[in-house]
């Protein structure tokens, strides 16, 4: 497979996932804030920008955190490279450049999403956020489903899985990091703390799954454990990284890739998965959570870099002088 094609599939998938994740975080916030006292409203919007990691950029353009400014920034702002519309544009541009590698159904769905988001404006979204958000979510999920059902499950598909799960692992880490930090200020068991935990779970689409699988009370440690270490919930960090590991293993088997960087990314993924598999959640709770997640995020990003090095930058490897010298004798 062409390196450029692999790279485009990977980023197409990451951007779609990113658009869906940002949209979901916004939806949950709109919903959660309906239960908030008026004076806390501003505090309720700030963490969203923290989750995307774009606080600096935000403050260049806005002085206040509220529904209007945060939504506008996260959905449309032209200078925000991670705005939902920018993500969908870039996902589509990537899809377009590999139009012949993806199925017609995939292209149709991504196009439909693109035309949908181009046809709306901030004001109409603020008037009816849920309808808009569910359209974006449905668009992304339909795209994932159609990908699964219509694309050849070959090398290209594995790059799509890799992009999706790496992005998801990163977003779950960030949501956990920000929301867990906010919990520290609250007393366990208070209504505010419960609401925060519910919002945290819902931001990862995990509320119902958590309820089904966990007999425990809503407890910060249990929620963190679930979002980090579940092997069955499809947005848990460990689950996502294990999927990445599988995808990389299949790719390197298919390409017979024994190059150093390929094995570097495989090794890094393997090491990270093992660490999480054997992690005792008690070791990272409370004030240890933030440093732990910071390190985890850095490792997830490093894996992204290694994948780029291994598969997207094919170079001519000239014969080494030693080989040339060896060839001079018959």
């Amino acid at each position: 497979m062409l390196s450029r094609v692999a790279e485009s599939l990977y980023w197409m998938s990451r951007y779609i996932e990113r658009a869906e994740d940002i949209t979901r975080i916004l939806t949950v916030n709109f919903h959660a804030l309906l239960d908030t006292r008026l004076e806390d409203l501003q505090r309720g919007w700030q963490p969203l920008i923290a989750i995307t990691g774009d606080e600096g950029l935000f403050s260049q353009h806005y002085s206040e955190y509220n529904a209007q400014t945060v939504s506008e920034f996260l959905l449309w702002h032209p200078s925000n490279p991670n705005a939902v519309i920018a993500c969908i544009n870039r996902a589509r541009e990537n899809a377009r450049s590999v139009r012949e590698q993806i199925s017609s159904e995939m292209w149709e769905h991504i196009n439909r999403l693109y035309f949908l988001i181009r046809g709306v404006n901030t004001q109409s979204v603020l008037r009816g956020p849920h309808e808009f958000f569910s359209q974006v979510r449905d668009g992304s999920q339909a795209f994932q489903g159609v990908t699964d059902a219509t694309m050849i499950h070959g090398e290209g598909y594995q790059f799509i899985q890799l992009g999706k799960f790496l992005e998801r692992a990163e977003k779950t880490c960030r949501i956990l990091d920000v929301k867990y930090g906010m919990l520290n200020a609250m007393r366990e068991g208070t209504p505010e703390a419960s609401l925060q935990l519910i919002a945290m779970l819902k931001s990862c689409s995990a509320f119902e799954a958590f309820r089904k699988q966990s007999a425990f009370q809503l407890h910060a440690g249990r929620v963190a454990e679930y979002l980090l270490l579940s092997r069955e919930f499809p947005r848990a960090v460990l689950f996502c990284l294990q999927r990445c590991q599988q995808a990389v293993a299949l790719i390197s088997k298919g390409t017979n890739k024994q190059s150093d960087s390929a094995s570097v990314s495989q090794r890094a993924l393997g090491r990270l998965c093992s660490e999480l598999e054997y992690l005792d959640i008690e070791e990272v709770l409370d004030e240890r959570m933030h440093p732990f997640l910071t390190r985890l995020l850095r490792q997830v990003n490093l894996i992204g870099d290694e994948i780029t090095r291994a598969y997207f930058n094919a170079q001519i490897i000239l014969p080494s002088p030693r080989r040339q010298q060896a060839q001079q004798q018959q």
Partner: protein
Amino acid sequence: MPLLTPIDQPILTDNYEVGPFFDEMFESDGQPRSHYRVLYEHLSTLNRQAFEERRRAADISFLYQGITFTVYGQQEGIERIFPFDLIPRVIPRAEWDMLSRGLTQRVVALNHFIHDVYHDQHIVRDRRIPAELIFGARHFRREMVGVDVPRGIYVHITGTDLIRNERGDYYVLEDNMRSPSGVSYMLENRQAMKRTFAPLFERYGVMPIEHYPQELLNTLRSVAPDRGVEPTVALLTPGVYNSAYFEHSFLARQMGIEIVEGRDLVVHDGKVYTRTTAGLRQVDVIYRRIDDDYLDPLAFRNDSLLGVPGLFSAYIMGNVTLANAIGTGVADDKAIYAFVPEMIRYYLSEAPILHNVPTYLAINDADRRYILDHLHQLVVKSVNESGGYGMLVGPHATREEREMFRQRILQAPRNFIAQPTVSLSRHPTYIDNELRGCHIDLRPYILYGEQVTIVPGGLTRVALRRGSLVVNSSQGGGSKDTWVLYD
């Protein structure tokens, strides 16, 4: 009689004007021609509502499938669907057979000409074509002199534009021999027609065109350099921002070949490779949709970011085939065009089957005097432009425009030709809720590999602006499906 509401009104009304033109569907007395009778009967049963429903369904499916082209120079909404008209153009078999023979003859002669130009140049020495016309052509590539190409074939793909005059006679307007586009519309139009007008196909016997991609692939494989393995074919595109990108990607998908950009290719040791996730893979044939100028920054324009450094040297070493070959543009120069009938006589000793539109060369003194005296009657064309740019349509031009062209012709006579205005034939086309006659042309696609292959049909382009004679997509044109009948 009950009053009809607008949506119940038929789309084919008594208001339809044949006018002083050749109408493809109707005789001058308003009777449908025999090969259009079935279509005529079907259209007579359709009211606006029924037709609009079919039309919307076709338009939407084009947009969702991304069958769009890009309009340059507009900031927002740059992607448009190429307007598609649901009324098919019908060509009887005998007429098509004549066109097919004429096109084959023309392409073979033109290929002889290109080979000759880059080898012994007999046609110049025998004084059949002035040397300065050939060597002064903008797309003449002196780098190609003495280079041999596989099977001696230069033009693997040609798109020839045909028009009909007011008597219905066919003429060749131009031969596009660099990288003609539009074939994807031909194929997609047929798909759309099958979805929306299936019953008509059952009543007509329409010859298939769906095998075009397979024929194209066979053509490309037949000119691969022989290195003892199955040849690898790739399509080289300028990239997603090119207005024809949809077509590039469509054809690559249909042929099952890789679509590559310049940055995906690398030349090492005189061979061309693609960069893949598993390392480098050698390529044998490149169907390139990039102009000569941009192919290789080391050989041609050194500011090209689209090309592949070293590609030209791999090419002249014979390690890779380019389709079309480098330097074919010399044959679609509009001044050289005037000599195609001469080439047919010279190389094939045959009489031309298809005629040229009479052409005056501004470089000839007598012709130039005639052109300058008759600017108000002629169409003046710049020899190097395509896509409907750089044209003066004398009868429709203002005095200032004519004066400007007069100066330009005097400054650079080599760059201009003129032709009498031909009133293109018209075809019923759906505009503003009813059928009206619109001017059309026809671009069949001619493949030249082991043999010459032409799938029966082509892209019929239609001028959707009222009275307009220009059918190019960049100038407000659309297209319709073209049906060649079995008999």
